[in-house]
């Protein structure tokens, strides 16, 4: 096992990463973003809209407004779904702005007791360390398997702690984690058409190892040699979204080392997690032009592909069987708004014969998952999920397809709590099913 991320995570003295004036100046406050913002749609308040948040960030950065609890609340409530970027005619890079603002909040704002402690422990003491995360995963698994969680649920203990809905949102821990301890290579089936590196994620490898396996099978079946480089770890997305930019940088640097080790070129670095992909395609923002890692970061960005985008570009060649079902597709925000990939997953879905794709209303609106948002802002996340499920239910689809592990979790909870018991699958799981059936 490669070494743990070195303990250089302390805030660097004097770090002052701020947004550029020109980034704010692009916003002409036209308001075209408003109705695309999930929180504005819920509450109708300027303070919880992209335009209003940009205004607040600018006022704080220019020293006209204090960085107080009110400001932090409105920035915390942002899902960072970036639907506003898609809506914006002026090309404001909102995601970048809000992530920088969060970075500044973490550097300068003192959160209250428990929130502060919880965040510090998770982002600084757990997330960067694969072994600690694995140990935590093991503990959670034990709790889930031993029935402790069920017990807590049935006795109303979770309800008492306000964790009832959260329990639904927590991932089930896999019996066996997806391994990256040694480099593994999976041969292409048939003629090799491409050689790709697979990015396995952090939490996903403990909770979505089946999805990772399926992704590799689908890639192989379509003529890809898949390499899972050892020593890779978290992409840093969770840390970027929470404002722990120094942590994110260390994590990102580690991936740059791992995926560029030995210099042997991959045709692409592939991920099945849109949220991770979106951050990894923006490593250049973590390592600006002044950084010695800038070149490598840009090179990494260029190689990175979401699995749906990659397969769509490559073209499906694996024989597939009919899978007769009625499905709807929920755009993963960080695929659609973050990476601007809309058609690729839809084309892949429609490549499977027998699948009837029924578009839901507002499929471009966040389901409320948004990384750890559903845990930190549960009430809002659940309100968004209920709205989402109304749209899903209206399609009468049996299967909800999406392109990101976080969305899968949230939608599974939705199907259980407010749905018609729909099955929730990643797009590659659908492909895997079609391919597997052919092989069987």
């Amino acid at each position, binding site marked *: 096992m490669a070494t743990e991320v070195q303990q250089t995570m302390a805030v660097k003295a004097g770090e002052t990463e701020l947004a550029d004036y*020109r980034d*704010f*100046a*692009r*916003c*002409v*406050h*036209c*308001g*075209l*973003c*408003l*109705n*695309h913002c999930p929180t504005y749609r819920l509450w*109708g*308040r*300027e*303070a919880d809209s992209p335009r*209003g948040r*940009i*205004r*607040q960030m*600018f*006022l704080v950065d*220019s020293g*006209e*407004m*204090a960085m*107080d609890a*009110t*400001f932090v609340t409105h920035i915390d409530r942002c899902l960072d779904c970036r639907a506003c970027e898609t*809506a*914006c*005619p*002026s*090309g404001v890079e909102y995601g970048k702005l809000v992530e920088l603002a969060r970075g500044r909040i973490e550097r300068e704002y003192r959160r209250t007791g428990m929130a502060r402690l919880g965040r510090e422990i998770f982002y600084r003491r757990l997330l960067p360390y694969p072994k600690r995360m694995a140990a935590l995963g093991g503990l959670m698994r034990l709790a889930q398997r031993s029935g402790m969680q069920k017990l807590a649920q049935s006795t109303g203990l979770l309800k008492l702690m306000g964790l009832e809905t959260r329990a639904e949102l927590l991932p089930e821990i896999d019996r066996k984690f997806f391994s990256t301890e040694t480099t593994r290579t999976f041969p292409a089936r048939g003629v090799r058409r491409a050689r790709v590196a697979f990015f396995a994620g952090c939490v996903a490898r403990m909770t979505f190892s089946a999805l990772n396996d399926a992704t590799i099978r689908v890639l192989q079946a379509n003529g890809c040699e898949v390499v899972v480089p050892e020593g890779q770890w978290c992409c840093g997305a969770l840390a970027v979204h929470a404002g722990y930019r120094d942590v994110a940088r260390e994590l990102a640097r580690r991936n740059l080392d791992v995926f560029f080790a030995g210099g042997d070129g991959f045709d692409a670095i592939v991920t099945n997690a849109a949220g991770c992909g979106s951050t990894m395609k923006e490593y250049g923002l973590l390592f600006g032009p002044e950084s010695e890692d800038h070149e490598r970061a840009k090179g990494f960005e260029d190689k990175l592909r979401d699995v749906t985008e990659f397969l769509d570009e490559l073209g499906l060649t694996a024989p597939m069987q009919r899978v007769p079902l009625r499905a709807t597709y929920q755009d993963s925000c960080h695929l659609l708004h973050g990476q601007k990939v809309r058609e690729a997953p839809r084309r892949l879905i429609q490549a499977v014969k027998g699948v009837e794709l029924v578009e839901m*209303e507002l499929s471009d609106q966040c389901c409320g998952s948004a990384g750890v948002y559903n845990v930190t802002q549960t009430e809002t996340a659940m309100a968004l999920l209920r709205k989402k499920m109304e749209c899903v239910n209206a399609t009468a689809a049996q299967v909800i397809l999406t392109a990101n592990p976080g969305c899968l979790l949230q939608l599974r909870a939705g199907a259980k709590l407010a749905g018609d018991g729909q099955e929730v699958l990643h797009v590659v799981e659908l492909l895997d099913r079609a391919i597997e059936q052919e092989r069987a």
Partner: protein
Amino acid sequence: MIAGLERIVGREQVLTKEEELRLYEYDGSVETGRPDCVVFPGNKSEVVEIARWSNRNGVPMVGRGAGTGLSGGALAREGGVQVVFSRMNRILAVDYENQRAVVEPGVVNLELSRAVARAGLQYAPDPSSQKSCTIGGNVSENAGGPHTLRYGVTTNHILGLEVVMPDGEMYRIGGAAVDAPGYDLVGLFVGSEGTLGLVVEITAKLTRLPESVKTLLAVFETTDDATETVVALTARGITPAACEMMDGWTIRVVESWIRAGLPTDAGALLLIEVDGPREAAEEQAAAVVETCRAHKAREVRTAKDEREREALWKARKNAFGAVGRVAPDCYVQDGVIPRTRLPETLRRIGEIGKRHGFEVGNIFHAGDGNLHPMLCFDRREPGTFERAMAAASEIIALCVELGGSITGEHGVGMEKDRLMPLLFSETDLELMKRVRSAFNPSGLLNPGKLFPVSKSCGEIRAPAMGRGPSEPIEGARNERVGSDAETRGGTQR
């Protein structure tokens, strides 16, 4: 005093802290006006109570929808209480058979169209900001949009209103049927820019979606050929659903960002849409093609499918945003001229630009002569700003000289109030003021709008997102470009 408001709507629905109020001092325009408090009513009776409170306490009051307006109509120019309708956003009833809907003022324009689309209906006025702007705001500003040419502006689609007067009395005007007897008070209220009453309920007409829509792109070597074509279409009695023009400079800017497949070597293009029953639409499309060809169109393309059609409209509706990327500053004006004088006007606008050292970009509603000349520059270069403003003044003066108007659709608000004397004599304005006084005698409702403020020194200030220097502008609209949300000041009654 604020406690009185809190008793009406609840503490949660009143904002008074400075950092909260600063988020309501702007809209889509370059104006600012900070309210002293912001209140979010949840229903009509709360609006009535708020109006009574304002009247009792002598506090100015101004309504606001989504804040996408382009002339500061919804801003609290003289402070006071801002009444924001974002919570009153329900579609109350839809009568499909009789094609009408009853909505609260905070309903988003596009959401109404979406809600009735399955029944083959739409709410026709389609300002470019339609995905955000509210119907209440549209009513106040008499909003238009590209399809105004055929379907008319907001006032042509409003049957009845429920309004709360500044003293807190509530009235119903118009009705569910077309052409209510008595004075056309609906006509008076629509486009009154929030100076007569607060609209709390709207009965709107729904229009059948056309059976067939054809979107054509005609490409020309010169702007003259394109504008001559528009004149010829009018002369032949062809009224397309929309007729938009983009000049060569704008085409290149837009295409470099949006990639809709526009010809970047062209001198100008027309985006023309015809609709109706299949045969009629085809017949019209053929006539349009013929007219374009007769005026030296080098190519006339018809969008093959909905996707291509959407791409063309996306290029049109997001054009100002794209132009905003070219230079840090860009001023878009909103003027009207008789469409028969388009060729001459564009030539003269080009000359004015050249004289001041600018290339003027043009993208506009050619069909109804509503111009949006754009001047792009960088204000950090000394003297550029002043030159841009001088050119802008000349262009607006030219519009008036040619028999046009100072605003086509963005409204007067607090931005062009002092330009009103260019169009109206003092006695004309006096009559309008008497109308305002009949409904809004105390002047507490939306003060400082529409009419020249006597103490004004004739300056419009242009703060960019509340920062940067405020510069005076002489005689022209100063818009830091972003949306082309259309709010029409009643050019097409």
